[in-house]
């Protein structure tokens, strides 16, 4: 059914609303990647079977939604309207959960979240500390709608921002509002979105293109994935509004190849939007014509860089170009092009619907609104969190994240992906926004937040990022290509205990040259992980170089493993996993590691149930 006018869209919404029974029980099963891997598809099927078996189809509905965020506790299931939140739900538990929640109208205690501090059960999602400190705007639909059903999106006020702009706003007014809201690019650069739109609109060209950058390549980041998978229409609606404001008739969404579900859900959403006349010629009967094409990436990190991404869309190897040619003036096929990140696009309908003042009421002076972070690494509550700009790192990591796993000591938090840096404990109380993170030598990046504890070696982390970048540098310009190679050589020898006294200085000089000489942002920010770890953890570098020690016990060449005979219970587990048969010992008697055979793979350390394996 094609909608021929804004009125018809509103009529559809009203009809859907009148058909909805707010008292109907709905079971929301998380279909995010984390929960799916933990078996949530099977859990959903079990719920479906149980609903049929109990013959309650008429009063209970099941929805598979996008990522709820609390990946650590998956599979997650929420019952609405009751708002009961179940975690770590198993297929076996389903009949009992249905019986208690729907038939007996109470809840199943065993699958509720238990606060690790108070040991008390928490029934409602909103009361769980992980969610309590969050402000879920962009992720508002995730967990509430079925991303493959356009009607579900329309029911939740979807495409009402589009209605609003088409009936009441001129293109320039939209740009004014986006600019006034203070929205800055969520992909890393933090450029003012409204200003970018205006430049593209003013640039001369027969056609204008808009692009959504879904090539989320920063390791440790999966916000954009969850938005594309869980709320594809939110991104599409943002792009249509952008197209109207900028005067574009063609858009591209570039999705990295590792995200097949995002491609699938976006394709379905585009198809449904076309069928409703929300994409294509004469959208909602207005003169606006705009359509979107999906481009799957080929697995190259550099394609997240805007000019490389455009080269890739044009069917070439994704090599960046110099920055003095502005995308807004000469982008795709040399035409004015506006490129924004997934999360930026998803913010647009919210700003239009609620107004720029609503948006800018949250945040810090120069960073407005919320930001989605993927909180991962050595933190208890791993998952996807959305917080107001300006919350402190401590609040994010300890209040929402629940602190460090096994209550180990916090060492650093890495933000900004390979272009970012490692922030040490003394800065945990800084408010998180674009400017504060840059001041510390790191950056906001796309929103990966990787927490590291005392068992992480910072030299190894620096080496890890440089190794990643050596692999991903496109090789076009010398400072990046060769600078990275030299850095890797030096860092490798440091982690092997062959570091030289002058190595730290050479690394700093190399970093300086790369910052000034590289063609694109990848090379220009590549030294950050090295420079920040030198700045904040110089003692670890010195320990490797001067004492030939790895204080965190990570660098293979600098450690040795042994078994504490007093703690060992002789369970043979370590001997079984040892791939080089270096562990000897009889059942129930202390084991011994043969240092000559040991390859220090730490398999024994990992499996020991009583922590008897010691790293020195």
């Amino acid at each position, binding site marked *: 059914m094609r909608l021929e006018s804004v009125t018809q869209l509103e009529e559809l919404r009203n009809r859907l609303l009148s058909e909805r029974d707010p008292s109907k029980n709905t079971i929301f099963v998380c279909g995010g*990647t*984390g929960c*799916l*891997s933990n078996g949530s598809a099977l859990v959903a099927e079990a719920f479906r079977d149980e609903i049929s078996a109990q013959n309650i189809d008429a009063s209970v509905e099941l929805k598979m939604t996008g990522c709820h965020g609390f*990946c*650590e506790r*998956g599979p997650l299931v929420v019952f609405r309207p009751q708002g009961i939140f179940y975690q770590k739900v198993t297929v076996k538990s389903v009949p009992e959960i249905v019986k208690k929640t729907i038939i007996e109208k109470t809840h199943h205690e065993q699958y509720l979240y238990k606060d690790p501090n108070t040991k008390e059960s928490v029934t409602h999602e909103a009361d769980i500390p992980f969610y309590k400190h969050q402000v879920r705007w962009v992720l508002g639909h995730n967990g509430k709608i079925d991303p493959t059903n356009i009607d579900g999106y329309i029911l939740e006020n979807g495409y009402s921002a589009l209605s609003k702009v088409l009936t009441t706003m001129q293109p320039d007014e939209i740009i004014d509002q986006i600019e006034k809201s203070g929205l800055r690019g969520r992909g890393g650069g933090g450029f003012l979105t409204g200003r970018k739109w205006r430049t593209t609109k003013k640039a001369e060209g027969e056609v204008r293109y808009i692009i959504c950058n879904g090539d*989320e*390549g*920063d*390791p*440790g*980041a*999966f916000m954009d*994935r969850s938005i594309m998978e869980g709320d594809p229409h939110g991104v599409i609606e943002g792009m249509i509004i952008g197209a109207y404001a900028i005067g574009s008739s063609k858009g591209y969404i570039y999705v*990295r*190849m*590792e*995200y*097949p579900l995002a491609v699938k859900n976006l394709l379905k959403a585009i198809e449904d939007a076309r069928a409703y006349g929300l994409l294509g010629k004469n959208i909602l009967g207005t003169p606006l014509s705009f359509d979107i094409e999906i*481009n*799957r*990436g*080929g*697995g*190259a990190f550099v394609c997240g860089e805007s000019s490389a991404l455009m080269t*890739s869309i*044009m*069917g*070439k*190897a*994704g090599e960046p170009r110099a920055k003095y040619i502005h995308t807004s003036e000469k982008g795709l096929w040399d035409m004015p092009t506006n490129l924004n990140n997934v999360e930026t696009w998803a913010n647009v309908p919210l700003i239009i619907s609620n107004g720029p003042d609503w948006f800018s009421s949250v945040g810090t002076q120069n960073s407005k609104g919320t930001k989605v972070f*993927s909180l*991962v*690494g*050595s933190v208890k509550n*791993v*998952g*996807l969190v959305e917080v107001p700009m300006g919350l402190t790192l401590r609040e994010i990591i300890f209040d929402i994240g629940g602190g460090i796993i096994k209550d180990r000591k916090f060492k650093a938090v*890495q933000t900004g*992906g390979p272009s970012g840096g490692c922030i040490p404990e003394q800065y945990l109380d800084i408010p998180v926004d674009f400017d504060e993170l840059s001041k510390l030598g790191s950056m906001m990046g796309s929103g*990966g937040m*990787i927490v*590291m504890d005392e068992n*992480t070696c910072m030299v190894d*982390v620096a080496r*890890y*990022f440089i190794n*990643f970048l050596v692999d*991903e540098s*496109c090789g076009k310009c010398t400072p990046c290509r060769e600078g990275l190679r030299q850095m890797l050589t030096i860092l490798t020898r440091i982690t092997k205990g062959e570091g030289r006294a002058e190595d730290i200085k050479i690394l700093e000089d190399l970093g300086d040259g790369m910052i000034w000489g590289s063609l694109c942002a990848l090379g220009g920010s590549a030294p950050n992980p090295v420079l920040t770890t030198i700045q904040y953890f110089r003692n670890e570098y010195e320990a490797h170089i001067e004492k030939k020690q790895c204080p965190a016990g990570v660098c293979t060449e600098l450690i040795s493993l042994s078994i504490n005979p007093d703690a060992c219970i002789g369970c043979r*587990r370590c001997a*079984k*996993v040892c*791939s080089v048969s270096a562990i000897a010992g009889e059942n129930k008697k202390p084991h011994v590691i043969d240092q000559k055979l040991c390859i220090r*793979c*730490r*398999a024994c350390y*990992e*499996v020991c149930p009583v922590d008897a394996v010691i790293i020195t």
Partner: protein
Amino acid sequence: MEIPMTIDFSKVDQIVQKYEHNASKVILMLQDIQTEFRYIPQEAVTRLSENLRISESQIFHIATFYKAFSLTPRGEHEVRVCLGTACHIRGGKRISDGFERSLNLKAGETTPDAKFTLETVNCLGACALAPLVQVDEENYGKMTIEKIETVLKQYRK
């Protein structure tokens, strides 16, 4: 698994047809070819080059630039060990070393029986499951060295 000796290259023509001979879609065509043959055969490049009227070297530039493409046949099952940051600090490297020992090869290689190809990847974007291993489409989260054999066993049949 055996690599078929004769490859049906009319599939290449169909793929080109699907994208209406549009040379700017060559990356998408190569993706389809990779899915179809599990690698990019030399003959397919020639066929593509003739069809699209772009040089073979240009196609090879693309095929070697992007990690999605392989110029040698991949194994029946692809094991991808994630080495994203979250996986790295939770011991991803030890897991990939473990797979190398179990499969008796180095990352990037294929077993002689063409059963497995082992790859390390830079981030699969499922960081909450770190350390993560993906076999074909299936994710195995919170991997340990002890679980490696259990995972491989399912695909060894």
